[in-house]
């Protein structure tokens, strides 16, 4: 139990720093930086906890993104900053970047080395994983405006 907790804290810490770098890259305003780090850290920790409980990665991403999306609503109303400003930077640590690159390099290797069933399997698996994780993340973020605030602006 203690090990799990320590693992989650470490995970949250590094995910938070990762999000901070990208928040600076996206020029997120100063007053939103801390929120960005905290949201990213907690969302990533939630996803890691779910993965630890053997939830498939797409569903874990979806649930983490949904919680993140809902948690940013009160924050966004308080500081009058649109949600995408923090949510997108906060979600970056969960983006399936490695799978996306593996899909592309796999496609190129498929062309370069000739067709093989094993390689094709890897390409399709990585491609689908990228697609579903991304869809899960974006759907999760969109839950609050799509389901709760149907035609009303949040900020």
């Amino acid at each position, binding site marked *: 139990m203690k090990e799990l907790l320590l693992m989650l804290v470490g995970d949250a810490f590094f995910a938070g720093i990762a999000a901070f770098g990208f928040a600076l890259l996206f020029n997120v305003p100063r007053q939103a930086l801390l929120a960005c780090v905290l949201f990213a850290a907690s969302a990533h920790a939630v996803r890691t906890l779910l993965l630890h409980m053997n939830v498939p990665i797409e569903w874990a991403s979806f649930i983490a993104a949904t919680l993140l999306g809902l948690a940013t609503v009160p924050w966004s109303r308080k500081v009058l900053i649109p949600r995408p400003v923090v949510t997108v930077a906060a979600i970056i*640590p969960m983006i399936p970047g490695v799978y996306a690159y593996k899909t592309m390099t796999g496609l190129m290797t498929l062309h370069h080395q000739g067709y093989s069933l094993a390689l094709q399997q890897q390409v399709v698996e990585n491609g689908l994983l990228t697609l579903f994780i991304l869809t899960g993340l974006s759907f999760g973020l969109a839950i609050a405006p799509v389901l709760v605030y149907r035609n009303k602006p949040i900020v």
Partner: protein
Amino acid sequence: MDPNITNQQTANRNIANQQSISRDEQAAITRVIARAGQLLQAYNAESRLIEQTTERLGIAFGLDSVEIALTSKAIILTSRFNDHCVTTTRTMKAHGIDMGIVCEVQRICILAEKQIYGLEQIKLRLDNLAVPKYNAVTVACFVALSCACFSHLFGGDSIVFIATWFTSFVAMRIRQWLTQLHHNLLTVFFITAFVATFIGSFATGFGWGNIPELVMVTSVLQLVPGFPLINAVSDMVKGHVTIGMARWMTATLLTLASTLGIVLAMQLAQLGGWI
């Protein structure tokens, strides 16, 4: 703030403002709204936000409605008042991602809604948007730290962490330099990925750390087009299918450009396939 109350207030204001807008004034208002929409689109706000903000600005200025059609390269905007329409088109020059400007435009919209600012003041403020940028070296340091954190999250040890930081820092500085020279985004991604992978391949060649391949893999993660990808899917979810597709295609092209850089660097470094 309760949105119902705001809607009610704007509705009342509309009644008060009725018949007080001349055609010239309507054209001037439309120009300001178009400028706000153009800024939001140029700095990568999602389509729903552009649609909502332009509509709210129009209502705040006393128009009946603002209709907007978004394409990937331009916005077409019609404002309506007493059955009189003014339509204008603005092409979009992509400026990259800047959430500071998106926040600022949103703030200006709220100031207009609360009637703190008049049309002239808002026009002035939109024309002289001054959003502070973070220092380039600081940004590069922290983006490199982000990539190093990814390498840690994937199970790398401290040597991998440091090597990743160094590799991504150099790559990020080159990326900033190329962006400053106004190169095409695809070229920038290709060259940056090439440099990152090439430097990272030394770690693999010399076998630094517990998983040397991680240096190559994670130092190019700064190039993953996360923002366009998330925007693409959320646009499609919220009904802007065509612009979502366009953004998805842009993101795919950027990934392809980075992958080409990676593959070229690996073939030069004679390391074989990535998988």
